[in-house]
């Protein structure tokens, strides 16, 4: 396939400028680019990309409509499977989903499906494409707990079908990780705000500041509503469990990102929530959370911002595009190192990390290589440490006390359609799968809304 055309690339702001603010890094396709990319080498298309999309977007159809310039129709068809393309186009790890299955991927030039999806989503938001359907209330009430991607899909699906929806969110802003975790420079909050506004237009009643579990129990909700959906996520940070973890200037990534994004600490003192960022910042871990933290630290003035990861470049779990962006922004990467102690010169503030050198070995029972300590240690001098080593299921729901079956990691057990062990109670998203992706959470939301509608229709 030597004669393949090059991929269209989204324009990006220059690293020297973008590390000084929180404005979006990638600027999206122009109309010309979208059309060109949607029809690029289309003669080879085998529609294999659809295998990679967790919600089964009809990608070839989207490409055809975009190539024809029929964006509105592309949008209307797209949202049947992926209701928020402006979001998923930006945050899906396309290199491991749709784009990995593109026939052109083998040549390193898969169609930029994410960028096209983003283009369609942005076009619809900019042109204020409205719902066509008129909603006929069906007299049934559903409680949706949490307001992350899984819950947003359940609420919007069921509201369209005529259900009356009360959404309960403990935070002061709806959106889950989309507003408290993923930074503005990757997903402008205006987009999330607009999508949440659409929910309100559909008649969804969003009640902020209500921690379900203590303010109202799952049992109470199950009695008051015809069905309950639990989409409370997995955002309870794991700790490193090494000495020195509670020194000053050691943050969990979620605290750091919550202070920066949700509480707008990057605009302190205009906003009241403070945030310390030193000159040399180390972030432990290499997932999306780590990439977001390290790039946030850079933007807040860190002279050196370093990712410390126990495996190597190849195993980085973060979205590929963001790893490239981070590298462009001068983020340093230190591989095959695992923290064994956080050090302090004055017993108050962190001053360095003692690290174990690691190595990768072939492992028989696992696809991934195993990582083992070498016995050699080294030291890294830093003045701020951010830990991004994973999450547990969100605890505030107090799931254990509600008679719901969970697995040994505290995740809610469901059947393939999101039905829990309690009748009338459904769950989906990270609370079921553990840390997953936005589109997987949305897929669970779609399955649960389908199950709820089916179960209540036959009742």
């Amino acid at each position, binding site marked *: 396939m030597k004669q393949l055309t090059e991929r269209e690339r989204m324009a990006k702001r220059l690293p020297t400028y973008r590390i000084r603010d929180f404005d979006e890094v990638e600027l999206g396709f122009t109309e010309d680019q979208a059309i060109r990319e949607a029809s690029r080498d289309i003669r080879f298309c085998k529609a294999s990309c659809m295998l990679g999309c967790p919600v089964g977007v009809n990608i070839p159809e989207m490409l055809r409509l975009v190539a024809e310039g029929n964006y509105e129709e592309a949008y209307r068809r797209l949202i049947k499977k992926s209701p928020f393309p402006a979001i998923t186009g930006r945050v899906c790890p396309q290199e491991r989903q749709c784009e990995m299955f593109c026939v052109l991927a083998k040549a390193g030039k898969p169609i930029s499906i994410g960028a096209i999806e983003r283009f369609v989503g942005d076009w619809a938001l900019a042109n204020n494409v409205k719902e066509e359907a008129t909603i006929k209330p069906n007299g049934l009430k559903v409680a949706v707990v949490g307001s992350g991607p899984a819950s947003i899909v359940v609420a919007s699906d069921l509201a369209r079908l005529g259900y009356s929806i009360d959404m309960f969110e*403990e*935070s*002061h802003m709806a959106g889950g990780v989309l507003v*408290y975790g993923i930074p503005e420079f990757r997903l402008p909050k205006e987009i999330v705000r607009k999508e949440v506004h659409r929910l309100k237009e559909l008649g969804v009643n969003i*009640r*902020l*500041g*209500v*921690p379900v579990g*203590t*303010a*109202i129990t799952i049992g109470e909700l199950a009695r008051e509503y015809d069905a309950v959906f639990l989409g409370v996520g997995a*955002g*309870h*940070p794991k*700790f490193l*469990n090494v000495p020195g*973890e*509670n020194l*000053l200037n050691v943050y*969990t990534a*979620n*605290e750091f990102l*919550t*202070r920066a994004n949700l*509480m*707008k600490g990057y605009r*302190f*003192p*205009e*906003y*009241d*929530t*403070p945030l*310390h960022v030193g000159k040399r910042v180390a972030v432990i871990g290499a997932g999306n959370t780590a990439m977001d933290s390290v790039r946030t630290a850079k933007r807040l003035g860190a002279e050196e911002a370093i990712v410390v990861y126990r495996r190597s470049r190849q195993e980085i779990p973060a979205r590929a595009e963001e790893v490239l962006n981070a590298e462009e922004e001068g983020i340093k990467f230190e591989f095959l190192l695992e923290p064994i102690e956080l050090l302090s010169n004055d017993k*108050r503030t962190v001053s360095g990390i003692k690290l174990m050198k690691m190595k990768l070995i072939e492992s028989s029972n696992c696809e991934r290589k195993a990582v083992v300590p070498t016995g050699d240690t080294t030291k890294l001098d830093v003045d701020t440490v951010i830990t991004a080593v994973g999450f547990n299921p*969100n*605890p*505030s729901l107090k799931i254990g006390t509600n008679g719901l079956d969970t697995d040994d990691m505290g995740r809610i057990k469901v059947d393939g359609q999101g039905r829990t062990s309690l009748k009338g109670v459904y769950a989906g998203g990270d609370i079921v799968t553990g840390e997953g992706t936005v589109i997987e959470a949305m897929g669970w939301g779609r399955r649960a809304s389908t199950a709820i509608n089916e179960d209540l229709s036959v009742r």
Partner: protein
Amino acid sequence: MFKVNEILMKRQLASGVKEIIIFAPMVSRAAKAGQFITIMTDEKGERVPMTLVDWSATEGWIKIVISEVGLTTLKLGSKEVGETLYYLAGPFGNPVSELNSSTIILVGGGVGVPAIYPIARSLSRNNTVISIIGYKNANSILYEREIGEVSDEVIIATDDGSKGQKGFTSDALRELLDSGRKADAVWVIGPAMMMKACSEVTRPYAIKTFASLNSITVCGSGMCGACRVSVGGKTKYTCMDGPEFDAHEVNWDELILRLGAYKEEEKRALGRYILRSAN
């Protein structure tokens, strides 16, 4: 009808200390002694935790007592009756441990006194409750009558001796125990230094001692870990695992260190606020 999060009443209890009653029906119907709420005064504000001091499920209100120590508490104190708070969520945290037919000593210091009120009220139903309440001086006394209503005995201590016993609450607690009074459990709420001192007093007596911690908190719901504390050598979340912990197991020095983490920023923010209010 009132608006949700509307301030219904406000009164000054002592210099820099205000009692605020807020319309929050969702919280009031579920509130239990020992729990707290989180508040934002405005869209740009910090999210801060406040203990639930009193509430009425039938009338839909909750009561908090704030000590104006910094930017957020000053902003909160300046909100007038009829204004609404941008955000109020709760209840969060675990309710107070239950005990029966025991003798319990409750120790409250300063704005910790209103915080022990709901605990005293809850525990006094089935237990004998002795409350030790401590203040700087006679002018800073608050919640004396309220504590009296839910305690079998009240001991007042002031740092300068201008009312009640002279000395700290920890001194009064030591005297009481040294005099041979038996207690099955002790609760302490107040500044971290005071809670630390009290827990040292009860340690040699091996009396089960609970403290309600006030670590710096961002989310209040177990998602950020800002409020982490070391208890019995393990890292715990104040908001999810507490706020009540075994006082003998708490690493007090670490808590005190972490409470000071943002001293510089707090000063800056406060200075800016005061300048603005003056202009």
